[in-house]
């Protein structure tokens, strides 16, 4: 039986791995709208990490800024320019 602390560490490891995958998808994705969504997914996972690392203050500022405001600004910029990344 796992102790609570080990469970939290395992959860942190899993969340970190998924967030790395999200970063990878955001980098290689050619459709910039999807890349923004992957980036927001990574930020959401980072929020879980911040919460587990006992920094709820940073988590509270991370959710609206990194999941709401920055994707909003990026989507506005994409709608002004081009959606597809060129080679």
């Amino acid at each position: 039986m796992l102790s609570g602390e080990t469970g939290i560490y395992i959860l942190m490891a899993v969340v970190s791995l998924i967030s790395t995958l999200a970063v990878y998808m955001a980098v290689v994705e050619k459709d910039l709208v999807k890349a923004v969504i992957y980036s927001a997914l990574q930020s959401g996972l980072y929020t879980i990490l911040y919460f587990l690392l006992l920094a709820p203050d940073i988590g509270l500022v991370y959710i609206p800024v990194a999941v709401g405001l920055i994707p909003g600004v990026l989507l506005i910029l994409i709608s002004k320019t081009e959606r597809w990344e060129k080679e």
Partner: protein
Amino acid sequence: MKTVEVVVLIILILALALLITVGFEHIMPSTAVRPPAEFYLYATYNPYKLREYTVMSPEAVTAIVWDFRGLDTLFETSVFYLALIAGLALTRRLLSERAEKPGHGLSLIVKTVTRITAPMIIVVGASIALHGHLTPGGGFQGGSVIAVLPMVIIVVFSVSFLIMRGFTTSKMIIMRSLGLFGIGLTAIALFLVSLIQGTHAYVFQNMIKPDAQTSMPIYIAGALISGTLWFFNLFEMFAVAAGFSIAFIVLMLARTLQVEER
């Protein structure tokens, strides 16, 4: 090509994991509380033994951010507004705030849901900001939660809808300036009071200090407000929410004008 990228990524992750496993004892910070943190935690709410150093706030992070290290936060705030002013200066020729016919926006279902959730967003943001001295949170956090609302309205309705409801950039700039003015006034409030009374006080002082006996009110009507912390959080909330809203409105308006010129 893609396989190579994936393999490199996996090797990188495994190498980092190995590094952390091997150097665990040297990389990981110790769980013991370090001496400065010990003092901050001991002094953050301690009206009995440390009356002359305490902030009277149970939230140690907000106490550090707005009292122990208050000047740092003041300059961080000013950096944020300098960036905002730079953005406004870049787009000042592109703005045209005519009340145009609002666009169609999204469907009726989305609009209704937005109308229902809009007050909830404001209430959550306000509670994060105004309870910043009691629970995790603070002015910047609450303000950025509230700033999500104008963005959602711009996406769901349109930017003309927001402007027709009176949220023009000039009004937002006035609100932001009032927030900044409030922050500045709170910082020098005790200094001004002691200047009138002829006593001694510091700029950015909150509670009594060994050589300055004036203090901000700790309770208002029985509710703990921790002196300057509550006021700082309140004004920061207004300033941050208005600041982010300006950024969105300016970005969207610049786009409309560019489309018109084509």
